[in-house]
């Protein structure tokens, strides 16, 4: 359910290292809690995001929730498909529902995130 090679934040974002970049999305747990996502507001490419600071907003039929950057760095890619298909966040939160790709500024930040097992404990699913 929660990929072993991802790192997880206490705010329910995941970070997947792809060489010097990090792909970012929200976890299955967060997507389920939000209920059906209808809108994802993401920063444009080139924006600097900061460790555990808000970088966007995800809206569901029930509620709005801020997105926190699990790592600092410059946004180099944004998932444009979410604009017309926000439901991807619920359907495939750890894959097609990814949100941004960040050029990693400080690799040690990844060590401050949880591994899959610690995250499952964090959400009470361990």
């Amino acid at each position, binding site marked *: 359910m929660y990929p072993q090679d991802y790192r997880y934040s206490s705010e329910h974002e995941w970070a997947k290292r792809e060489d010097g970049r990090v792909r970012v999305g929200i976890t299955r747990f967060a997507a389920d809690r939000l209920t059906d996502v*209808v809108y994802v507001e993401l920063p444009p490419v080139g924006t600097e995001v900061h460790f555990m600071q808000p970088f966007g907003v995800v809206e569901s039929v029930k509620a709005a929730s801020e997105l926190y950057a699990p790592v600092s760095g410059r946004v180099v890619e944004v998932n444009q498909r979410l604009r017309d298909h926000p439901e991807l966040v619920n359907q495939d939160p750890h894959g097609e529902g990814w949100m941004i790709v960040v050029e990693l500024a400080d690799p040690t930040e990844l060590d401050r995130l949880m591994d899959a097992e610690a995250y499952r404990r964090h959400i009470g699913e361990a």
Partner: protein
Amino acid sequence: MGPEEAVQRLQEAGEELEQLVAALPDPLLGERVERWTPKDVVAHLVGWNHHAKEGVRELLEGRPPFYLPHAKEDFRELNAQSVARWGGLDRESLLGELKGSLQALVEFLRGLPDGAWHREVQVRDEPLTVLATVSQLAQDYLSHTERLRFWAGLRGVAVPRRRLLRTALHGWHARAGARMVPFAGWEMPLQYHGIVAEHRAVRTGAGLFDVSHMGQVRLSGPGALATLDRLLCNDPRRLRVGQALYTPMCREDGGVLDDLVACRVGEDRFLLVVNAARREQDAQWVRDHAEGCRVRDVSFFTSLVALQGPRAQDLLQQVTEAQLAELPRFHAVGPVRVAGVRAWVSRTGYTGEDGFEILTDWHRVEAVWEALVDLGAVPCGLGARDTLRLEAGYLLYGADLDESTSPLEAGLGWTVKLDGREFVGAASLRRQKEQGVQRRMCGLVLEGRHIARAGSPVLSGGQRVGRVTSGTFGPWVQRSIALAYLPPELAVPGTRVQVEVRDRLVAAEVVKLPFYRRQGPDPV
């Protein structure tokens, strides 16, 4: 519900009562709630722990329980005996009797073979089982406990519930994997597989909602109609037997106490279906104003499910002999059989689709629910209920309506029948109508996909002019929609305003409600 769950619920209901009574200060313990003191309530339940055990024994011998074939007066006699026997005990001894008798009953029930629980004995044309007997006793506990809790709260003694209230379908929801959330003191399904999918099921097929958390208050007696005529904004005198109406119930100053559906189920009998969060207040308000009728909160003895959508009639007709094609909107029929269960069926709902609401005895609802699911009805949670009602422009008490809003402000003027009537609040509403209201409920459509939420400020010309009371992204209309109170001069379709959504101003337009209107002719 299985035997284990039923016994567990009974035990938990007993614990709730014990805790409540233990927390009541001495003077309250002996004070009359109405006919009875809290002590009397406990004493009569001690009695029922004994009666139920005896009754179950008789059921297993194939006979109706000794207390059942009799009329209500015999109950009264039975209860008076219990009150005389245990009501005079001090707190500690009384609670000891309660715990002891309940424990004895539970141990007796736990010793029954599984097959015993479902053996049926016909009592007044209804099959009675041990399971139903135990369920009813647990509900009796809850009904008394919640009444006492409310009463104690009014006297400054707040005793929180140990756990949330559960409907008879709670076990079904849990087994189906529903995500449960607290709502007005109840643990209710928010969604089963997804709010949007459930929303679409209702717009295109048939969705099924457990709305048993809603309250049912029954009025019976020659003064019932006059009592309601004094309390409801809409005119109950228009109702023939089998008809229902939607109406606000107001305070003297015109503030809305609740919005509800009143159904005339007999010449001198009415059923009010009220919001879960307002049940106790409503029942008390009606009792305080009742003349010549008996008021009973029967919420813990009834279950209510809503079958909604264009296929609702097709599905329901397959499991009932009631002629649904001949049942107009806001009409009710009963008692009829639905999936073999005695029920009342009304053509009402809260989704903007054709549909029905089905009222059964508390413990019999599961057969109805399962029959409809087997026919293809899609179980839907409170999430879809909220998005559906918002698209349909229906108001939600506690969000769009409360004691500080008047029905005239809320756009419910069509339910306020002032001509020649003097219901509570009529004078204030008459004055409001003459002088005009200060604000009016209207629909907003926001540009893009930014969603307004309750509390979002509405601006015009840079000035704050109102606030949003409900908002969502309409899954069917595919627009960001909201309800908001605005000054009358702005509450006109076509007016451009702005809504503040997370420190950003989003353009919005006032539109005529509802956001969604069902296509096709009305039934009948």
